[in-house]
């Protein structure tokens, strides 16, 4: 088989230009595949990370039913047992209590329904990136403590409500007794996150302030938890469920809380595979065409090989090896090029700020950092090899079936 391999390899380079064109098309296909996979991975990762870092955390403990109906009545007291269960888990990096409720913000110019979140600012700094998203203007500042009665709103919401830092607004909310209560609040600071929907519909105030306003006293809506490693989510969630052993509480992962995000990631992945299918169908025809041309050129030669006793299976193997040679060279070049460019872009990022609004609505941020996964490279290799085998089958069978006499007469 070694000499068949040797013949196949040397045959590859008999028409260097043609082989290089095919190798280029394979390597460009792989390059495009790795880079687009990297970009898609980066977008997906940033979408997920941004959602986790702005609002969800990795895991949340709620009163059962809160996720389906985010109303104030679904509250609970963060007992020592609950806090101990969270603190006992070593994979937990940070946690913070929150109150979440729908409310109406009204300025002198406009009003808007938003989700008001009562936070402990110091704990929140460790849990989410809200503090990092604060505008660095001199006037804009973060909340000073749980009792701070000021409000943080996004830059875009401030624009809609025609407010500046230091301006007053009225927050109207339904309290525990289902009475509408209102309070004047000063805009302490403005933030701008990479997620447009978050900026449009979320505002922050002090946890104690909101507890007092709504009459929840020491009760809260949720405890949000951040882990050191996102991959531990399911294990930690299961551990907490077991540790809490309270039917009145629900423990949800970010996937449970943002199913539409999970669906979006799956949708993007599916779209990517459709794109790859189109690219590699083109590659199949390119390889098949090249091999058929190569076989037609060597029709006579293959006839000679068969006439001196080469069996059809060896001719078949020879053509398959030629295809594999094309694939391996193209694969090596494509993986090297795609890997290098994606690795470089994963550091520099791809600035898509000219699509700022679209990127913000996707929740990715305007700079995408492609991410390579070993599985992607493996998938690229498998797809190319399978594609090559499919592409080479017809030419190989055709070559194996050449009748030596017909070929000997063919000049």
């Amino acid at each position, binding site marked *: 088989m070694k*000499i068949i391999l*040797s*013949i196949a390899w*040397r*045959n590859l380079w*008999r028409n260097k230009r043609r082989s290089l064109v095919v190798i280029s098309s394979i390597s460009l296909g792989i390059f495009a595949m790795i880079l687009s996979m990297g970009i898609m991975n980066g977008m997906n990762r940033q979408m997920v990370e941004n959602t986790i870092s702005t609002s969800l955390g990795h895991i949340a403990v709620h009163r059962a039913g809160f996720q389906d109906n985010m109303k104030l009545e679904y509250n609970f007291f963060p007992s020592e047992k609950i806090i101990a269960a969270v603190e006992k888990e070593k994979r937990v990096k940070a946690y913070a209590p929150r109150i979440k409720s729908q409310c109406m913000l009204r300025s002198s110019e406009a009003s808007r329904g938003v989700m008001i979140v009562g936070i402990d600012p110091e704990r929140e700094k460790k849990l989410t990136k809200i503090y990092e998203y604060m505008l660095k203007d001199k006037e804009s500042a973060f909340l000073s403590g749980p009792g701070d009665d000021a409000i943080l709103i996004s830059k875009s919401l401030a624009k809609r409500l025609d407010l500046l830092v230091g301006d007053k607004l009225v927050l109207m909310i339904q309290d525990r007794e289902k009475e509408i209560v209102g309070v004047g609040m000063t805009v302490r600071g403005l933030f701008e996150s990479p997620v447009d929907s978050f900026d449009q519909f979320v505002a922050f105030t002090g946890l104690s302030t909101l507890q007092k306003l709504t009459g929840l006293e020491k009760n809260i809506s949720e405890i949000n938890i951040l882990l050191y490693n996102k991959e531990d989510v399911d294990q930690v969630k299961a551990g907490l469920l077991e540790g809490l052993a309270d039917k009145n509480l629900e423990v949800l992962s970010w996937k449970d809380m943002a199913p539409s995000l999970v669906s979006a990631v799956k949708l993007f992945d599916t779209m990517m595979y459709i794109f790859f299918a189109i690219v590699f169908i083109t590659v199949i025809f390119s390889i098949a065409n090249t091999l058929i041309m190569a076989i037609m050129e060597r029709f*006579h*030669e293959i006839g*000679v*090989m*068969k*006439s*001196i*006793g*080469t*069996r*059809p299976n*060896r001719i078949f193997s020879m053509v398959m090896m030629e295809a594999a040679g094309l694939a391996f060279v193209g694969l090596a070049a494509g993986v090297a090029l795609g890997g290098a460019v994606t690795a470089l872009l994963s550091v520099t990022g791809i600035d898509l700020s000219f699509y700022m609004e679209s990127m913000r609505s996707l929740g990715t941020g305007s700079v995408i950092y492609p991410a390579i996964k070993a599985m992607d490279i493996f998938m690229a290799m498998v797809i190319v090899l399978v594609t090559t085998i499919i592409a080479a089958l017809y030419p190989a069978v055709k070559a194996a079936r050449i009748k*030596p*006499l017909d070929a*000997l007469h063919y000049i």
Partner: protein
Amino acid sequence: MSIIAIENLEKEYNTNGIVVRAVRGVDLSIEPGEFSAIAGPSGSGKTTLLNIIGGLDRPTGGVVKVGGRDLSSMTAKELSDMRLQRIGFIFQAYNLIPVLSAIENVEYVLLLQGLGKEERTRRARAILTEVGLESEMNRLPRELSGGQQQRVAVARAIVSEPDIILADEPTANLDQATGAGLLDLMKGLNNSKKITFLFSTHDPMVMERAERLIYLTDGSVMSDTKKARGKRTGRSAAAKKRAPAKKK
């Protein structure tokens, strides 16, 4: 026992509804160690006859036995194995594998036979030395002259020590001196290794050196002369029908 035995061989080609009888009722017997040539004008059926003997083509009628085996009963795979083990081919256009060096071309046949690397190399070197190409072993076919390429083809044909070598116009692309040298080489191998050579040719030099000359016309054997004995050994039934017996 004859190494090649042909009885009433017929071969017809149907090209676009036109039937061409390429071989008509040929009877022929080749003994082991013969150095014979089939001659005749173009289209007389020489190459067709050689192809059928080599199992590259199937007859329309009649029987062809090589080494006692009836080729009509053999599958394509068996024919392929027979060509590999028992028959060596030499073609007019040399037909070496262009990406393999001279020694690799010779080794290729041995590799198909399943011989180990060491044995392959030893035999290929020996045979290339025997045909006078010891210094050209590692050259590609395109780096060799026509005569040298044909010597490699001869080496490839004989390296597996087949019973028969079928040579289709082996000197047609060579100048007279090179052709004569090649014929000397093949005659030497015929003498030393007792390999049966059967040529198809219209080169007068080959006809002159062949020990037996079978002359075909329109697919029939018109004459069959063993020169050593200096007499005709027989004619095909078809030839007898088509032409009256010549006077001796």
